[in-house]
């Protein structure tokens, strides 16, 4: 149940046996079904979710009810509305389950307490937030000034697992293009 989390943490820091047990005791294990919501717009995001198994995605809805996909999350990734988590403001995002998932969640108080008790976990948190910032910058860079083909190519390099696991209309939304444009791009890349 904690294998992916263990690997993720130990990729960056080292925990003693005791520290790892403290860590495990701080997380909320939750199994979720496809199409369930981890978070709905209007609620404050009080928890960070680590994905042990499965897939989720976050999105906002425009005034016409169209989905604008912000992020995907797969095994070994974290997913949350960081803006809401850090500011305590109601989220504008929904986080929905794409595939049946097993999550490990940690709420803000528990996260703070764990960082105090386990300095290595605080380091891990710092690295996570650094990586989140870098990913955000990369996302912005890959959205501006690139052709549709370039956007899709870079997207597949960054998220190879999405090709088989994510419906095309969600990928199109993430890339800021219509499903028809994405189909055209995929056809042209296949030909070349």
């Amino acid at each position, binding site marked *: *149940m904690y294998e992916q989390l263990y690997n993720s943490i130990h990729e960056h820091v080292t925990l003693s046996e005791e520290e790892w047990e403290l860590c495990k005791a701080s*997380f909320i294990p*939750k*199994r979720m079904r496809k199409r369930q*919501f981890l978070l*709905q717009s*209007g609620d404050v995001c009080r928890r960070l979710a680590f994905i042990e198994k499965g897939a989720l995605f976050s999105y906002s809805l425009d005034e016409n009810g169209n989905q604008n996909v912000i992020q995907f999350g797969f095994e070994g990734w974290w997913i949350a509305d960081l803006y809401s988590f850090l500011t305590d403001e109601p989220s504008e995002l929904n986080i929905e389950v794409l595939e049946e998932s097993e999550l490990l969640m940690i709420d803000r108080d528990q996260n703070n307490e764990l960082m105090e008790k386990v300095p290595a976990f605080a380091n891990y948190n710092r690295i996570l937030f650094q990586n989140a910032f870098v990913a955000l910058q990369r996302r912005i860079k890959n959205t501006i000034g690139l052709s549709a083909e370039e956007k899709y190519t870079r997207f597949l390099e960054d998220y190879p697992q999405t090709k088989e696991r994510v419906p095309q209309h969600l990928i199109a939304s993430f890339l800021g293009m219509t499903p028809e444009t994405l189909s055209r791009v995929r056809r042209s890349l296949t030909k070349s």
Partner: protein
Amino acid sequence: MPITKQTVAIIGSKSILGVSIAKGLCSENYKLLLFDEDDTFAGQLSDQICAEIEGAEVEVIECQHMACWEADVVVIANPVNDINRLSEKIREVATQKIVAVLLKETDLQQLELVERGFPHSKVVGVIPSDYDKESVQLMTKHTRALRTVKEMVEKAGFKPLLKELKPH
């Protein structure tokens, strides 16, 4: 009340508390997972609720472990004679979750026994009153958990009397 639907597992849905909580929560923003040794009863209760309340999300689940894994809140609605056996089955997936447990009386030792069975959960003791069938006492060291369970028992039609204990 959060907008995001919360999942409540009711272990021992055949009990008075279990039935009351199931009926009280089914019209609110909760998904209910019912478990009972008597799965026929649980099935009948689920069918009854779905027939009476439009849009109710209620399901009978055959595995306590799975019910608790999916749940945000676990309600153990049967008086538990062997808490150790139950906690062995579900403790792992109840970490940091609210576990509301039916107790026979306001007995700190009983509550502490349950807490030892669920060392990383937020245990709330639920004690029906001997004198007033509509009242239940809630006993816990966890303030936020107390608020959540209070809301739930109120929706189930009970009058909660609160006893917040000092944490160790």
